[in-house]
Each structure stands twice: as structure tokens, then as C-alpha cells.
């Protein structure tokens, strides 16, 4: 059985700067896989390569058995690869329900329908409300995004990713900026996701990482330092060196 998502030797150079250097990573089916590393290690760049925001300088990306390196962003999403953004990228003037509805309509093939109102598709609204309920956002459904509290906006960010019914979900620091109590709630929501969805999440909060991750990859200066179970990574001297600020050999 092929992996949910596989990166093979992914590299990205910006001029002379190597943001990502030959990264190979395998996301197993149903995984809860964390990607950690110091700031500037290239984690978001890696996610951008996986999702097709820009093409890699070299390397390949596979979604299941399919090679997706040449596919555009929206086609990858249509194949089941979704991501959320580290800094909220939402629709300020749209309501929570409308934001989610965009993704749902698109997924159901209704995105190009111009002759019937959205309200005429009650399934869309029903699915949207169910999703919002799972993310504890159902009360905010009719609120404009710009009026939401930051924590709720982060949840909406995740909701948008989930609305596309992904097989693989890439979460870029989902709990960033949220106070501790609410971030635990965020991760409970994520932990409650079905195993059909394979998850790779970037996170800085080690508490959360060690609670929810089943496998951890460590990225430093654009390169994969090590990978393994939480215990292995926690006991790895090199990882401790990196996080305590000592120079690498």
C-alpha cells in the first residue's frame, strides 16, 4: 500500500539561498506526523512545495501512487491534498458559513453553476453546518469573518482545509497565536479527525507535539536532520543541540 504523501529529494533554491535541500519524507496512511524545527528551517517552504505554491528546484511529490509534482495548486486540492496557513488567510468580508460553502460547492462540482442560487442546494448548507459543528464554530456561522475572535479564526482556517474533504491535510502551526487552553481544544478537534485523513502538522509547542504526534521529523536549515517516534526524537542528542542553540558539528 503506497504512502499517503511522499516527498522525494525536494529542493528549493531562491537565488543562492537553499530554503529546502533534498528533503525526503513519507507520510503514512492515517498518520499523525509532526514536522518540527527552529524558525527559518524551511518548514513552510516545504509545505508550499508539497501543495504547489511554487515548483521545486528538483525532486518529486507523490500523492498516493500519483505523481503530482507538475500539478497546479487547485488540482492537487481536487485530488485530496489540503493545507492550512500559518498566518490566517481568510475571507474578511464573507461569513463563516459562506467561506466554508465555497470549498464545499467546488468539491461537489457546483463551483461553476451560475444559474441557481446557493440556497437551492440545501445539502451544501447542511454539510457546512455539520463541519462547523465539529469545529465548535456553529454559533459563528452567520458572523462576518473579520468580526471573529482570533482563536475562532484559527479554527475557521482549519475548517477551510477540512471542507475540501482531503485525504491528506497539512497543518501549518494551527495553534499559533492561540492561548494554551484554546490550543488544546484545537488539537482535540484535530485528534478527533478520522484515520482516513492523514495529517502532517508543523508545530512549535512541544507539549502539543509530544501529545498528538505519532511520528516526528526534524528540519534544520533546510535539511532533514532526523526522523522517528517521539521518544527517539526526544532522546536524540543532535535535536537537543539544535533546540538548546548549540552549533551543529
Amino acid at each position: 500500500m503506497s504512502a499517503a504523501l511522499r516527498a522525494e529529494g525536494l529542493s528549493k533554491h531562491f537565488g543562492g539561498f537553499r530554503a529546502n535541500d533534498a528533503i525526503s519524507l513519507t507520510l503514512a496512511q492515517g498518520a499523525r506526523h509532526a514536522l518540527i524545527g527552529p524558525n527559518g528551517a524551511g518548514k513552510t517552504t516545504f509545505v508550499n512545495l508539497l501543495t504547489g505554491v511554487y515548483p521545486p528546484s528538483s525532486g518529486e511529490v507523490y500523492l498516493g501512487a500519483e505523481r503530482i509534482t507538475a500539478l497546479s495548486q487547485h488540482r492537487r486540492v481536487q485530488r485530496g491534498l489540503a493545507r492550512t496557513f500559518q498566518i490566517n488567510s481568510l475571507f474578511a468580508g464573507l461569513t463563516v458559513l459562506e467561506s466554508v460553502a465555497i470549498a464545499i460547492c467546488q468539491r461537489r462540482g457546483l463551483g461553476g453553476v451560475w444559474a441557481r442560487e446557493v440556497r437551492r442546494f440545501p445539502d451544501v448548507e447542511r454539510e457546512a453546518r455539520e463541519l462547523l459543528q465539529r469545529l465548535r464554530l456553529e454559533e459563528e456561522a452567520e458572523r462576518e469573518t473579520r468580526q471573529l475572535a482570533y482563536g475562532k479564526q484559527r479554527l475557521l482556517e482549519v475548517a477551510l482545509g477540512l471542507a475540501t474533504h482531503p485525504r491528506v491535510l497539512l497543518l501549518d502551526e494551527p495553534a499559533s497565536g492561540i492561548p494554551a487552553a484554546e490550543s488544546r481544544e484545537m488539537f482535540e478537534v484535530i485528534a478527533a479527525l478520522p484515520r482516513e485523513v492523514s495529517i502532517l502538522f508543523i508545530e512549535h509547542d512541544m507539549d502539543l507535539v509530544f501529545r498528538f504526534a505519532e511520528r516526528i521529523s526534524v528540519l534544520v536549515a533546510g535539511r532533514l536532520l532526523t526522523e522517528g517516534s517521539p521518544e527517539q526524537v526526544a532522546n536524540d542528542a543532535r535535536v537537543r543541540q539544535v533546540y538548546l542553540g548549540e552549533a551543529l558539528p
Partner: protein
Amino acid sequence: MRGSVVRAWQRWRSRAARGALLGPLDVGLWTLPLAGYFVFPDYLVLGSQMLIAGLFALSLDLCLGYAGVVSLGHAAFFGTGAYTAGLLALHGWQEPLSGLAAAAGMAALVGYSTSFLVVDARGLSRLMVTLGIGLLLHEVANRASSVTGGTDGLSGLEPSALLGHFRFELSGKTAYVYCAGVGLSGFVLARRVVQSPFGLALRGVRENASRMPALGVPVRRRLIAVYTLAAALAGVAGALSAQTTAFVGLESLGFERSASVLIMLVLGGTGRLYGAWLGSCAFLLLQQLLSEQSPAFWQFWLGLLVVGISLFARGGLLGVFAQLRAALGARRSRRRPPTSAEAPGHGA
């Protein structure tokens, strides 16, 4: 009997609030042109102009107000439609409704072929590309004077009777009803589009274009579609103008036409459909009143108005009305005396 009428009215209102096609407010607003027919019988020509400009501004609203694509060359499509209808009429095909259809088709074709350039560009480049397309078409029409009549334009277009029965006579009655009918149809179409999943996606593009591909939306395809639709509607407006004024000139393609429709739309308020109509009526009325002094006078005050809008009233007239309504609502709730249940001293 009265009870059932009241209930039906309430049902209609709640359906409209939830997004039905035409609510009581819409029907009310659209009786205004109907009233105009009876109340201002001497001003029907101006009325037709307002309706045509409104439809033109509406087409730009789809592009700009809903998808966020700023165009400085939208007159290219208005002019294309005008010249198509005009040339058809001059060469023997005078049936007005099919002339409209041909104009829409031609404008859509031009819109579609240029949409790729516009959609792929960003920021200043996109602005310049739209400007360039408008200027290019204007220049083409200028040079092809054997076909377009050059600076003299096409005149003496005589549309045949509407629906085989209603002739276009000097009083402008038929023209007015014609424009109102086409305008209403355009509005209904735009309304439908805006309420559809497609319209929702457009608003998403306007709010945050870079997020859309991450939701699986083929942004480019959507923008090409709306740009083509906007071009077609603008072409219809142009054809109406040609048929009702029996004239087509180079100004229908010029930068001034593109700039004025942009101003009309912003004056009324973008992204609200009605803003297009309100802005066009207000603009044309002001123009009528102020250019009686001198054209330069009108131009000066227009400039000042536009500067004012860009600084203080970005939502246009409708935006100002919305702010007033919100302010009045807030003041009313502050002045409302507390009920006995809210008065201090009573337990929670």
C-alpha cells in the same frame, strides 16, 4: 382574505431575506422606472440614457465589485456592442432584439479573447493591459473608418419595430420601455449570478484571491468567465445605445467612456448591484445640471467629487446610506429607555 395576503407578503419578505431572486424591495425599486414613464414624460430620453448607463455600470460591477478586477478599458465592450448593432442595422438587419443578441455575442468574443491577458496580469500591469485593450480597439475603429465611419461615426441607424409592433418614435417612449425591459433582464441575470455558487466564488476571489486555489477553485477559469459575461452585458448596453440614439461614435470606445462608467459605479457603490443604477442616475443628473454652465465647470466638480469619494466615501452613496442607517440604529438603541427588567437594582 386579508390575513392570507399578509401571510403571503411575510413569506415573500422572509424568502427575500434568505436570498430569493426578487424581493419586495426589488419590485419596489423597479417600479421607479415605471413611475418615471408617467411622471416625467418629457425626460424619457434622459431616462433611457440612465438605464443604458446603469446596465453598463452593472456589467462593470460584476467584474470589479464582485471579482475585484479593476478595468480602465471596459468601454471596449460597450463600443464593440454598439458598432455591431449599428453595422447590422446599416446593412439591412434592423430587428432590434436579434441585434442585441449579436452585439452580446460579439462583445463576449472580444472579451473572451482578451480575458487571458487581463486575468494573468496583476496590479499595475493588469490596469495597463485593460487600458491598452481599450485604446487599441479605439485606434482600430479610428483607422477602419471605411467600416466604422471614423470620427464621423455611424448615423441614420433605424431599428425596425420592436416585437414587430412598437415603433421607435421621436418621443422616446418605445425606446424607454425597451431600455427598461432590457435593463431589468440584465439586473435579474446579474442577481442570479451573484447569488449562485459561481458568484460566491467570485466574492471569495475578491476577498482573498490567493486562498482560493487552496480550496480547489480554478481561479483563472472563474475570472475568464466573469470577464466574458461582463463584456457581453456591456455589449448589450452599447447596442441599446446605438439602437435608441440611432448613432454610434468613437467615444463609445474611448478612455473617457471607460473612466465615466468606473466613476458612476464607484459613486453608487461597488459590489451591491443597485450601486450601478444609483450611481448612473446620480452622475447623469449632475452632469445635466452642472454642464449647463460650461463643460469645464462640470469637469472640475466631477473631479472634486471623485477625489472626495476616494478619500471619504469609498462605499459610494450606498455605503454612505448604510453607515447612516447603522449610526441611526445605534443612536436609537442608546436612547431607548431601559425597561423595568433592565433597570438597576433587579437581580440577574
